[in-house]
Each structure stands twice: as structure tokens, then as C-alpha cells.
């Protein structure tokens, strides 16, 4: 099936698409009919409209298109590692229909001009919806607020602000940022890392760092910032989002904050759901990431937190790097891992197959809730007639070893190379048009 066959005759809109025999949310078998960019019917034995294409879903899971709240697309400025085109291609292959593009580009996305440029490129080049994240501070320097309102009221309608990669560590600045975004229903997504406690830090501080002689990144450097921030959010009545939480202590603090009714949400990355600091022993910088891989106890705690709802979402922190940035001594290599193309497989492996999450929960943590936090009105909707036709058909029975060489991302720094991962993207539909079929991007 090519894109041509999927265009309705005489028009530019997508032709009707019937997903037959799939299991929405992994529950009962139901057909899903997509017409004119919307879901128009869900039920058993739906009639096939005359001009409709039929996709046999054969018991596959049908989910709303995934939404990533934390993606580094690298454009502008880092096109050697990724572009908006290649990054959204990777996203589509991963089952995503929307990504939030982090602000640490060159130039930094700290003005209306840059976020509008990113949004526009997303519209023209994107294989999924691109929502720019605005920087909290000018140049991510942590000294003064960027023009948040201008970004919020630009065409890009920014709602998520983050200095990700850097922590808004000045408590007064963080307080002001939290207060400021209230007027346009924004959220501050904090990269929680006390800079003084992590000077020169290379990996999780513990038994392995002691042995390897690498400077430690202590859990307390994350936890102390999260503790401060939830108290600040409570004090000023603002919305806080905690990026890529990684320690057992962080889970405890967020759980405590939620019990007190503080308006905080939190994310965990797929890699923190599986990998530990033991991987560092080979000094392969593909395992170097910030926050660092933690201990097996931390992995267990973030899984528990995701299962019980303390952690609201899974976000990839997809961080592509060119090969040269990783082919180096550990302390000179760049931090970050790609993750868009393996995210759902990781969630299936660590949570669904372990009986910790249902597929309905997966829809919540990878689609509905990230869209809600990011205020993506058109994304993460419940699969029902009238909802926009952003749909993923996922075959959970497929198993294959991850191979970064096959990835659509421009970069190859996936830590999962060679690991047997479950699940396969059979079909991803964005606004009624297939972007991916059987794992391959549908060239337009």
C-alpha cells in the first residue's frame, strides 16, 4: 500500500481506513473506522465503506497515538545528530503522533521566533505533531527569565517550559518561573540536578562509581531539588513537572507531594526502567546519560512508582548524538541516549509483560497524560467516535533484537542494541493518514 492508494480520489484528505479485528486498549476485539481525520465508529463487524482501505489488525493492540513530552530533535543547530524530519520519522516508527521538542538547540528556543520556527518546520517536515518546549531562562543560563508569555502566545502556543539539561537551580528564579506560567496555564518541567553536588559528575555515585574511580552523581542532587520544587509549587500554587526522575528517593518525594495535594507530575524514561549503573563497567559511553543509570533498587522503585501512578508518564528523553561524541573516553563523551524507536517496547517489556501495567494504563502513561500535561488539545484522546484519528496498532507478540543501524534517527546511540525487545509497530496513523506500516515509514 502506498500513500497514493490512501488518498481519496479528487481530494487531499485521507481516504477512509478500517482497522479490523484489533483490540483497543488490549481489551475486546473491535473494529475502528477512521474517516476524514476522525474516528467515526468503533464496534464489532463494522461495515466497510466502499472506498475504505482495510487493515487487518489480527488481535493487535490499538492505542491512541503516543505523545512524548521529552524529545531532543536537535534542530536548529545540531543537525548532524538529528533534524526535525529525522527525529519525527523516528518518533513515528516508535508509534508517536506528537513530540515535545526540547529547548536546548542552537540558538536556544528562548524566543517566540525560535519556537515558531521549530513549530513551522514540524508542520512542513514532521512525521508527527511537533510541540516546541520553551526555555525557562535566557540561553538556558539560569540567570533571568526568557519571554515566556511571548512564546505562550506565539503561533507555537508553548505550554511546557524547561531548561532541560540544566537545572533552574536558583530558588528565586524557579519560584518566579512557577508563578509566571500560571497566567497562561503553563508548566515548568524541571531537570532536577543540583549543580554544585554534581560538578564533574560522570555516573551514579555508589558501589560502581567507587570501584571505577568515576566522579559520582549522587541521588541526593536530584532529590533535594525535587523536594524544594514541590514545596515551591505548593507555596505559589503552580503546576510542576519533574523530568526523567531516576531514584527511589525521588519517587518517595513525589508520592509524598501528591498525597499533600501538590500539583506535580513526573516522568520516567524507558532506559531508567531497565538499565543500571552496572552497565558502566565496560566504559562504553552509549550508557552515559543524565540523570545517570542508577541501581537495581532504583529501577524497581521507578517501576513501582509508574505502576501505582506516582510517576504519571513515560517520556523518552530521546537524545541523539553523532558517533564521535560517544566514541571517546567516558569522561569526555556526551550524555544521552536515543529512545523514540524503542520506548513502547521497553514499557511492554518492563511493565506490561511483568503484569505491572495494562494496555489501558499504557495509553494513559504514553498518550493521554503526557498530552494533558503538555496541553495538546488534539492529542492523547480516548479512542471513541469523534476523536482525532491518531492511532497506533501494536503487535505485542513480535520479538526481535534491537538494531540501531535500522533506526530512522540520524544517530545510533541506542543502549538497547542486541537486546531482545517485544512488540512491533504495525500501523501508526496521524490525522487519518498512515505514517508507518509494519515498522516502515510510509514515504509521502
Amino acid at each position, binding site marked *: 500500500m502506498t500513500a497514493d492508494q490512501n488518498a481519496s480520489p479528487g481530494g487531499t484528505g485521507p481516504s477512509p481506513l478500517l482497522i479490523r479485528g484489533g483490540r483497543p486498549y488490549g481489551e475486546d476485539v473491535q473494529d475502528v473506522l477512521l474517516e476524514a481525520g476522525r474516528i467515526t465508529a468503533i464496534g464489532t463487524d463494522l461495515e466497510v465503506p466502499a472506498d475504505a482501505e482495510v487493515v487487518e489488525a489480527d488481535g493487535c493492540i490499538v492505542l491512541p497515538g503516543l505523545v512524548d513530552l521529552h524529545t531532543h530533535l536537535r534542530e536548529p543547530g545540531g543537525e548532524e545528530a538529528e533534524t526535525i524530519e529525522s527525529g519525527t520519522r523516528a518518533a513515528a516508527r516508535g508509534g508517536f503522533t506528537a513530540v515535545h521538542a526540547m529547548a536546548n538547540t542552537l540558538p536556544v528556543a528562548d524566543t517566540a521566533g525560535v519556537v515558531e520556527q521549530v513549530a513551522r518546520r514540524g508542520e512542513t517536515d514532521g512525521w508527527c505533531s511537533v510541540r516546541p518546549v520553551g526555555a525557562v531562562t535566557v540561553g538556558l543560563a539560569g540567570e533571568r527569565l526568557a519571554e515566556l508569555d511571548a512564546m505562550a502566545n506565539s503561533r507555537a502556543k508553548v505550554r511546557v517550559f524547561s531548561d532541560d539539561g540544566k537545572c533552574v537551580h536558583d530558588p528565586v528564579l524557579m519560584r518566579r518561573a512557577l508563578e509566571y506560567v500560571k497566567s497562561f496555564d503553563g508548566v515548568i518541567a524541571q531537570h532536577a540536578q543540583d549543580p554544585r553536588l554534581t560538578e564533574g559528575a560522570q555516573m551514579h555515585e*555508589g558501589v560502581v562509581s*567507587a570501584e*571505577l*574511580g*568515576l566522579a559520582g552523581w549522587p541521588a541526593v542532587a536530584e532529590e533535594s531539588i525535587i523536594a524544594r520544587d514541590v514545596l515551591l509549587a505548593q507555596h505559589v500554587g503552580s503546576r510542576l513537572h519533574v523530568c526523567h526522575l531516576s531514584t527511589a528517593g525521588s519517587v518517595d518525594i513525589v508520592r509524598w507531594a501528591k498525597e499533600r495535594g501538590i500539583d506535580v507530575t513526573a516522568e520516567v524514561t524507558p532506559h531508567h526502567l531497565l538499565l543500571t549503573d552496572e552497565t558502566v563497567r565496560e*566504559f562504553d559511553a552509549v550508557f552515559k546519560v543524565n540523570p545517570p543509570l542508577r541501581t537495581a533498587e532504583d529501577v524497581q522503585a521507578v517501576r513501582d512508582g509508574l505502576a501505582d501512578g506516582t510517576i504519571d508518564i513515560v517520556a523518552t528523553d530521546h537524545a541523539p548524538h553523532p558517533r564521535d561524541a560517544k566514541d571517546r*573516553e567516558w569522561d569526555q563523551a556526551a550524555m544521552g541516549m536515543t529512545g523514540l524507536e524503542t520506548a513502547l517496547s521497553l514499557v511492554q517489556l518492563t511493565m506490561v509483560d511483568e503484569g505491572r501495567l495494562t494496555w489501558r494504563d499504557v495509553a494513559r502513561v504514553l498518550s493521554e497524560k503526557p498530552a494533558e500535561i503538555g496541553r495538546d488539545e488534539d492529542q492523547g484522546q480516548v479512542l471513541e467516535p469523534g476523536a482525532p484519528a491518531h492511532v497506533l496498532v501494536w503487535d505485542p507478540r513480535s520479538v526481535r533484537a534491537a538494531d540501531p543501524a535500522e533506526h530512522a534517527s540520524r544517530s545510533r546511540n541506542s543502549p538497547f542494541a542486541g537486546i531482545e525487545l517485544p512488540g512491533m509497530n504495525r500501523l501508526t496513523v496521524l490525522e487519518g493518514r498512515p505514517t508507518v506500516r509494519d515498522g516502515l515509514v510510509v514515504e509521502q
Partner: protein
Amino acid sequence: MRHFISIADLDRDEAIAVLATAEHMAETQSRSIRKLPTLVGTTVVNLFFEDSTRTRISFEAAAKRLSADVINFSAKGSSISKGETLKDTALTLQAMGADAVVVRSGSSGAAHLLAHAGWIDQPIVNAGDGAHEHPTQAMLDAFTMRRHLRPGDPTAGLDGLHVVIVGDVLHSRVARSNVLLLTLLGARVTLVAPPALVPVGASAWPCEIRYDLDEALATGPDAVMMLRVQSERMVGGGFFPTAGEYSRRYGLTTARAASLPDHAIVMHPGPMNRGFEIAGDVADSPRSVIVEQVASGVFVRMAVLYHLLATDSREGPR
């Protein structure tokens, strides 16, 4: 042995074999002609990303006494200082036909990476990687201890000995390699340091950790190894209030040295901060084996190169 990267890669028999070879090498060095033909025609590259005159010339002397050709490749004034990566340097050395590479780097894992990244096929010797390991230093320390405390038996380990290692453990690759090797050889190790200079996570190491030097010395150790305080690596600062306070609490003063058992030896990997971690009089005293450690270094490095490069290394040196 394919590479010599980490004490953690060795078993006891391998460690003893290297020490035994080093004893043979020491014997040859008392002959009138000290140069052995063993490695004629081979080229050993000393790749030093960090300044270290002592270790470099020790490796250079070791290789030359085995008749190897030696190329010194140091950071200053070379392509490395112009921003060349480890990978490109390795590819260059591979293309030039080095037979072994001795590497010193400020980055933990550099030697491991060089050995396993697929850039170069030759044996790699770790001459110190960051705060990770310095395996030939530990071998020369064990060699020196064995000569003084377990003399005469080339198959002996260090069973039953008690070694106290004092000072900046956090930044010390010497301490890490020694904890592994000395315990592998049967010794008991006590680390003594101010708490901020003990790595978080070191409680998992196979040794005892104390904060009080006088208490540790009162147990009557067989050897005391003083570590250099690596002020240049103390990122973030504040590890101890002043040099004076450190010296009072953790310096090996003449009074402390006098409290040691008569047979106990005093060691230091060098370079020393005289008057800081060790009193000059102690460093120069009869119980100090610090200069002898330097001589041992050449024998041990000859032994390591021999085990990695000599085609007849299984039969022992002639």
C-alpha cells in the same frame, strides 16, 4: 594475558607468576650486562595523556632493558594537545605498527577502551587511568612488600600481612589497585582517610575503612602506605579544612612512625609532598622503602611486558 588493564582481571596464580618473573628480571639486572635480547625487534609505545615522568621513564627503562624499541608519545607538543582523540591516536599507532601500547590517561577506563573498542589490536598496558587503576604500581608495591616481609619464596603471596593505606583514597588509582591485589595475595588491608576522601560505595570493598590514623597504627601493621594528597583533582573543594589539620590527623610524622613495629616498612608511590602527608625524616628513614619501590617498578614492568610480548613467555625468562 592479552592485556594488563586491571588487577580485577587477574587471579592469584597470574599475579604470583608476574611477581616471580619480576624476581627473575631483578636477578638479571644485577649482572654486568643488564640488557636482555628478549624483545628485540618489537616496538613499545608509551602513550601518555597525563604528565608523569616517573612512570614513563620506568616503562621506558623496562622496555629498553628487554631490547624493545620505545616511542614516547606525550600530550604536550603532540597531536593530542591539538585535540586529537584517543580513537584517532589509536588508529595512528595501529597504522605505524606498534607492538604494545602503554597508556596513561586522566580518564577512568581509557586503557580498557583502547583494549576493547576495536581501534587497535595490540596488547595494552594500563599505566594509570583516572582514579580507576594503576595495576603496575600495585604489582611493584606487592613485589617490594614480598621482598621485605616474605623473602625467599618466589611462590609466596602476602598471606597474613596487614597493610595500612593512608590518605586521599577518593582520587587514588593506587589505592584501588592495591586493595584488589593485596587482598588477592592474602593480605588484610585497612584504608585510613578523612571521610570526605573515602568514596561513597567503598564499603563494598574487601577491606576495613577507618578514619583515625593513630588507632590504625596501634594495631601494629606490617606496612604503611602513604598516598599523595591530589589537591589538583579536588573538584568542588572542602575535602578538609587546611593542610595543617590534614597533616596533624593523617600525616605520617616521626612520632607516628616510631610507634610502628620494628619490622614495619613505610611506602609511598610518589611523588611525595614532604612535610604534608609524610615527614621528610620518615621518608628518609631506614624503614622507608620508597626509593626501592622505584627500582621494583622497572622489574615489574619488565615482567609485564615480558608476559604480554615474549613469544616464549610460558617457559620463563632465560
